[in-house]
């Protein structure tokens, strides 16, 4: 991942802020020119809820080159409380807490250190929601 590509997307990576289509409600994590679902062109900025539930998860053991040192790590499909689905790494899970349907909340965490440019990337991961 090149640094500018990461930086352009920082509002979403840090705060889960994106754009929702005024016509059909589809969520976009970057400012789109055209709605991917209905093709219309009007959007409003939204901040997604920080809590939701885990739809499915996996433990990645064979990782891409840049994540090799992090493996094994958890990745999950999360459905937020407003119904928006996103993909993210999971963190702070014990084996008992790790089950489909578990309640989760977003936290800001280190994602990785970029090999070529040396920057440290931060972004959201999801941890178990306690209580």
């Amino acid at each position: 991942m090149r640094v500018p590509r990461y930086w352009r997307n920082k509002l979403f990576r840090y705060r889960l802020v994106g754009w929702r289509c005024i016509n059909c409600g589809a969520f976009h994590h970057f400012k789109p020119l055209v709605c991917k679902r209905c093709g219309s062109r009007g959007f409003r900025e939204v901040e997604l809820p920080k809590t939701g539930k885990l739809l499915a998860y996996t433990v990645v053991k064979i990782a891409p080159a840049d994540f090799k040192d992090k493996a094994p790590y958890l990745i999950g499909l999360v459905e937020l409380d407003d119904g928006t689905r996103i993909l993210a790494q999971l963190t702070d899970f014990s084996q008992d807490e790790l089950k489909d349907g578990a309640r989760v909340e977003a936290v800001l965490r280190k994602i990785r250190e970029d090999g070529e440019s040396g920057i440290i990337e931060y972004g959201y991961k999801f941890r178990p929601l306690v209580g």
Partner: protein
Amino acid sequence: MRDVAIIGVGMTKFGRLEGKDLMDLLAEASLNAMKDANVENKEIDAVYVGNMLSAAINHQTAIASSLVDRISIFPAAADKVENGPASGGSAVKNGFLAVASGVYDLVLVVGGEKMTSADTDVLTDYIATMTHPTAEYVHGITLPALAAMLMRIYMQRYGVTERHIAMVAVKNHKNGMKNPYAHIHREITIEGAMQSVMISDPLRLYYTCPISDGAAAVILCPADKAEEYRDKPVKIIGVGQATDVQCVHEREDPAVLKSCRIAAEKAYKMAGITPKDIDVAEVHDAFEILELVESEDVGLFEKGKAHLAVEKGVTEIDGEMPINPSGGLKARGHPVGATGVAQIVELVWQLRGEAGERQIKKDAKRALACNFGGFGNNTVIHILEAMWK
């Protein structure tokens, strides 16, 4: 639009092919197909080369021009077609359109990939670049991880167990044992598969295709001229391609491969047939869960029921609906750009009755190939028919 026939097929062995580079593989498969079609070099009007990773892992671009040079088919028009793991299927589709349109009469389509020279983590990364750059790739997603989550959803929803997935792998390994072109020649057991190394929980090594080198090729011409070249021509009676939202999590239902459904509907409509008319299929089992999902979404089984067919042996070589008689991506191997073409090569052999020990038992007239790109966001379907039956 003219009817289009396949008059020649050929491939290289798939596997870890030491001492052969990408161009060697493309050339070998092309020449095998030209020989099978009784076609001379200078007759070829155009070539379409399906390949995904030449620039990334073989440090070579413009490989279609290079192939013309290698096998002396000047001055044939030459294009590379890249559509991820559906590059081969897309290349065949482009060849079909070129002949159907009347622009070209004799077209070579070849797909190939040389993968084993790259390290696994580098390949895993390049293949992951198919995913959405800022919504999927950035999190360290891998294709096996997406397959693992699809497998988990299928297990939650349809009563599919890990044992069913292992049964698909066992069947494909058994078929691969009978295929001299297959990468993997190893019989496995359900228990052995269920104890194999975990790649991305619950996806194990034996539920995943290997990393392979190889190439496959077909020769196309107008159907009314096919018998001038050889007997038993096979007509392409249906072609369908469709796309879906890139991010798996943004799809209406992450357990439905909508691009497969729509591509299949389009192909059946063009062919004027229904799924009941299909006798044999090759589907894109890069992961064994996908054999179930695709065979349902192309209409061969009801949604959520393919694992029951596997239990009953329906998809075996001697079953009512043989799937992946070649061994599929699981055992034949998956040199990504070659796969879509290799599926069609296998089905032509099956229709002609030339598949040797893995020849399906029923007398097949129509066959379906499902080649799947991205994680199911771009699917190419071809339906073939034996012209002499």
